[in-house]
């Protein structure tokens, strides 16, 4: 598996490819919608463009890796999660508000619910590849970082 801190190798490449596909698909869709049919459903189409932007940022950040890119990726994937949950819920509760579909409508059912699953996988991957202190070798794989026991609080040391 990939070394801690790198998000763009191993399984990460699959993630980057899927994010890339969604970035391209959402961007193309938003471009067509905005350029041609803007008046039909401004809210839905603005959301499409926003979703496209989020996917593009997430793709680039995940592919680059590194400390800054990781922060950007956390934010982008987090926004994506909030977006798909919010838009998905709204589109189910109030379909009239979304007369035209976006990537996130109905929790991404038009795309096989991949948009719903993707942010969870992205967050999991970012957490999994998080940089760790040098003390523990990364060989342990996916096991959670050892938590310092509750007994040794710094205050007691004095």
């Amino acid at each position, binding site marked *: 598996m990939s070394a801690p801190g790198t998000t763009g*190798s191993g*399984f990460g490449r699959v993630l980057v*490819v*899927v994010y890339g*596909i969604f970035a391209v698909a959402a961007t193309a869709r938003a471009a*067509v919608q905005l350029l041609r049919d803007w008046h039909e459903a401004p809210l839905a189409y603005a959301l499409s463009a926003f979703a496209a932007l989020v996917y593009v940022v997430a793709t680039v950040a995940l592919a680059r890796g590194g400390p800054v890119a990781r922060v950007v990726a956390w934010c982008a994937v987090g926004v994506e999660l909030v977006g798909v949950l919010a838009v998905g819920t709204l589109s189910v509760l109030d379909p009239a508000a979304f007369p035209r579909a976006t990537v996130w409508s109905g929790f991404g059912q038009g795309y096989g619910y991949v948009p719903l699953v993707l942010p969870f996988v992205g967050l999991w991957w970012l957490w999994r590849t998080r940089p760790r202190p040098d003390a523990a070798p990364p060989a342990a794989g996916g096991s959670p970082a050892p938590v310092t026991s509750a007994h040794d609080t710094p205050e007691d040391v004095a």
Partner: protein
Amino acid sequence: MLSPAGPGGLPPGGRPPRRGPIPSGRSAAGTLGGVVLPLVLVVVAACVALAAWATVFVVRDRAVVLRQLWGAAVVEGLMLVQCVVLAVLGLGGTAPTDPVLLWGYLVTALFVLPVAALWAFAERTRWSSVVLAVAALTVAFLEWRVWQIWNA
């Protein structure tokens, strides 16, 4: 750009023609139009086969091999042929109702497998096989959309 649905793209025994009987005059466009569905099916079948091949490699924990990339190149060639056929049909007046959408999908589909091929060189683990499988299935999906849009 609205043209009679005509013979182009209609599968034999598929949907009933929307505007009268099939015109026999434009036989050239007619025969070429009959190629659209077989081409889509061939590309989809090739993609599914490539995805299955890659999946076998995933299971066996192997990276993509050059032969699979040749397979991807064949799929790309088929898609280029498809683009030429659809372009000729479009120029001949048998255009779909939404050419922008159609060409958006066609051009996008052309880029998917080359990216997977680049990944195959960069990532020499089983994950390159996963990427190839995902890419091939994506192209198959895009082709299905192309067929939908062509008939819209």
